[in-house]
């Protein structure tokens, strides 16, 4: 998709009361009822809209299937993405293939959009390292579980791009919880000082496991933290795929011409538990969850597409069936992968295996069953 003109950000709608904002701008284009502010909506082709919708459904279905597989003991702990699909699809949509994505651990939609097959996600959470081997040219780092640890990695990649005088950008995902980590501060500061082509996308889903957003920071918004590091921050409705796309598009264009980083706070909500080991009912008010279900990004986007006569029940049935087939096929492919060789535990940490690891590998090899 060619870069868009970004004048629409000058006409942002008035700040919403419920979002307690500070000096940073807030952007919403598509509201909960699927009403679109056409004046500021970026131009997106119908085929792209269909693709995005299909990706949202694929993400939802994959997410649901992963959950069931976990409850059946077929994969281990994983984090559901339900509710954050628009934040990821809108932001990946603004990137080119050559750009890099650095993920945390809830980026199922971003992975699928980048072409990582569902079976890779299943394998990763099934404890198989081969799940992190993405198709050639995916330009996406593997899942990073330690909170915030991936943000400096992204800044490193962006710095490399700048040193090599490339026109690419690096986009990194993290949550509201990560903004309280030292890694976040160091990465933001570095990116600001060196004016790196890095786009920081904070998916503020209101809860860092059981820590609510109000306890995460005394700042009125997460986006305003960018001001302290000397670059722009913007808060967007993270359940509005157009707003996320528009903000990311602007940030990408800026980064490509050497004007440095941007922090985008996607104001969204985690509709599921933190992970399959969590029970959010213990700390979250059901009324709060119910209110956010009404803002579901998938439902909102569907309403818009219906108004535009792109979506109807027949279309829905067709893609549901197609996607169900894709997901089931991936489950089978995952379960037919077999066990990875023991070397897999050792091979990918260092370019050259250190002596201690070599020794451990030789030791563990003794216990491998002999094939006759």
């Amino acid at each position, binding site marked *: 998709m060619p870069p868009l003109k970004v004048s629409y950000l000058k006409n942002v709608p008035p700040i919403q009361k419920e979002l307690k904002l500070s000096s940073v701008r807030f952007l919403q284009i598509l509201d909960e009822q699927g009403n679109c502010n056409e004046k500021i909506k970026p131009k997106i082709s119908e085929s792209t809209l269909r693709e995005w919708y299909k990706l949202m459904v694929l993400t939802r279905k994959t997410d649901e299937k992963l959950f*069931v597989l976990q409850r*059946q003991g077929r994969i281990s702990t994983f984090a559901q993405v339900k509710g954050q699909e628009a934040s990821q699809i809108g932001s990946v949509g603004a990137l080119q293939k050559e750009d890099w994505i650095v993920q945390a651990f809830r980026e199922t939609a971003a992975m699928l959009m980048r072409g990582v097959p569902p079976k890779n996600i299943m394998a990763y959470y099934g404890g198989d390292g081969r799940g992190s081997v993405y198709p050639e040219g995916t330009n996406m780092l593997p899942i990073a579980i330690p909170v915030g640890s991936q943000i400096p990695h992204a800044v490193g990649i962006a710095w490399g791009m700048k040193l090599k005088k490339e026109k690419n950008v690096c986009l990194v995902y993290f949550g509201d919880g990560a903004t309280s980590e030292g890694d976040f501060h160091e990465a933001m500061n570095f990116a600001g000082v060196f004016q790196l082509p890095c786009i920081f996308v904070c998916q503020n889903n209101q809860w860092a496991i059981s820590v609510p957003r109000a306890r995460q920071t005394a700042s009125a918004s997460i986006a305003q933290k960018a001001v302290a590091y000397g670059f722009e921050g913007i808060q967007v409705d993270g359940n509005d795929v157009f707003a996320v796309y528009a903000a990311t598009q602007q940030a990408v264009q800026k980064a490509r011409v050497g004007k440095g980083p941007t922090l985008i706070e996607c104001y969204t909500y985690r509709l599921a*538990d933190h992970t399959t080991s969590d029970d959010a009912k213990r700390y979250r008010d059901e009324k709060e969850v119910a209110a956010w279900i009404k803002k579901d990004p998938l439902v909102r986007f569907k309403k818009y597409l219906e108004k535009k006569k792109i979506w109807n029940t027949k279309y829905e049935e067709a893609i549901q069936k197609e996607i169900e087939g894709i997901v089931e096929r991936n489950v089978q492919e995952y379960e*037919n*992968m*077999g066990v990875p060789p023991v070397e897999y535990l050792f091979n990918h940490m260092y370019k050259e295996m250190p002596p201690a690891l070599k020794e451990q590998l030789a030791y563990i090899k003794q216990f491998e*069953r002999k094939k006759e």
Partner: protein
Amino acid sequence: MVFVFNFPDVGEGLTEGTVVKWLVKQGDNVKKDQIIAEIETAKAVVEIPTPKTGKIITLHYKAGEIVKVGQPLVTIEEQESALQKKIPEIKTEEKKVEKATGKASMAEKAGGVVGFLEEEQKVIAPKQKIHIERREQGMLFGKGKEIAKQSIDAPKIGFESYGKVLQIPLSSVRTAIAQHLSQSWQTIPHVMHYDEADVTELWNVREKEKKVAEKKNIKLTFLPFIIRACIAAFKDNPYLNSSLDETNRIIVVKNYYNIGFAVDAPQGLLVPVIKKADDKSVLELAAEIQTLAEKARDKKLSPEDMSGGTFTITNIGSVGGLAATPIINSPEAAILGLYRILDKPVVRNGKIEIRKILPLTISFDHRILDGAQAAKFMNALKEHLEDPDRLLVDLS
């Protein structure tokens, strides 16, 4: 085709869950991924979806019962779906396997389970056939490793095919005993040293003092005397009252004597501990033994009552047997076993006499102690038991 769904670890490192309720009953038809049960774990109440479409044959637990991770939760008579039939064939290089099993299954071809499979065949041939069949049908989910594990575990649930069985869930006490004793037996190299003590004199003392004690409502058994004799014997043999700290390569010799004694409580074996036993007289020990044993039988022992032991005594004499091989109460260094006192003919001063003989065993940790040290301890113990005057000094 029968499929057994084992309760998975639905959290991180869970070991068990309690069935809150079943949403299906025996005979119901279920569809793949349909929620069949709610199970409460240490983390949350979770809904469990069935991995297979078919008819419910057995719900292995009732609501309220505890299910351990890895144990059968539900058995399903499977209905093959179109998708399952269409599993793509994967080319194999394991030609020999095909010979061995007649026809290599899907899972084997995917690699990784060949070794397991052959081993299984040797050990559990009749059962294994079922698993092979299931694999050929592509019925078992999971990767090679999981399939192999399930198959190895599976014979546990096959007892019913030979006759009626009763399935008793392990109680929490039984579970704790099982874990603790397995750990002791597997980590400590045990040696058992056997001897006999002539306790005729002690028998007479106890008969006499028993009446005095009764007036104070104290039941005087041999145990307090034996505890005192042990403590006396520890003085020259301190390693019997020690622990091994393997990580730091230290033997920790304790200068305090907290003596545990095994109680056969209704819920299982419990070991209450008498703290600072060396500061207590025979009568004080007798009173405390009585109190702790009653608490054990009334399920009133606190964790505090059972912790901090340095040495344990187990007495099977009241039930019977000549000797046994008691397992050390880890991390202690040894355990003393007492058996039934018998009238035995012994040679004393060139004549045969009938004497009261107490069989004794000491099981010791050979990492800490050698046989000679254990024998010296036993000799010292015998000396004190055979000459009760030395113990009587403390009797108040």
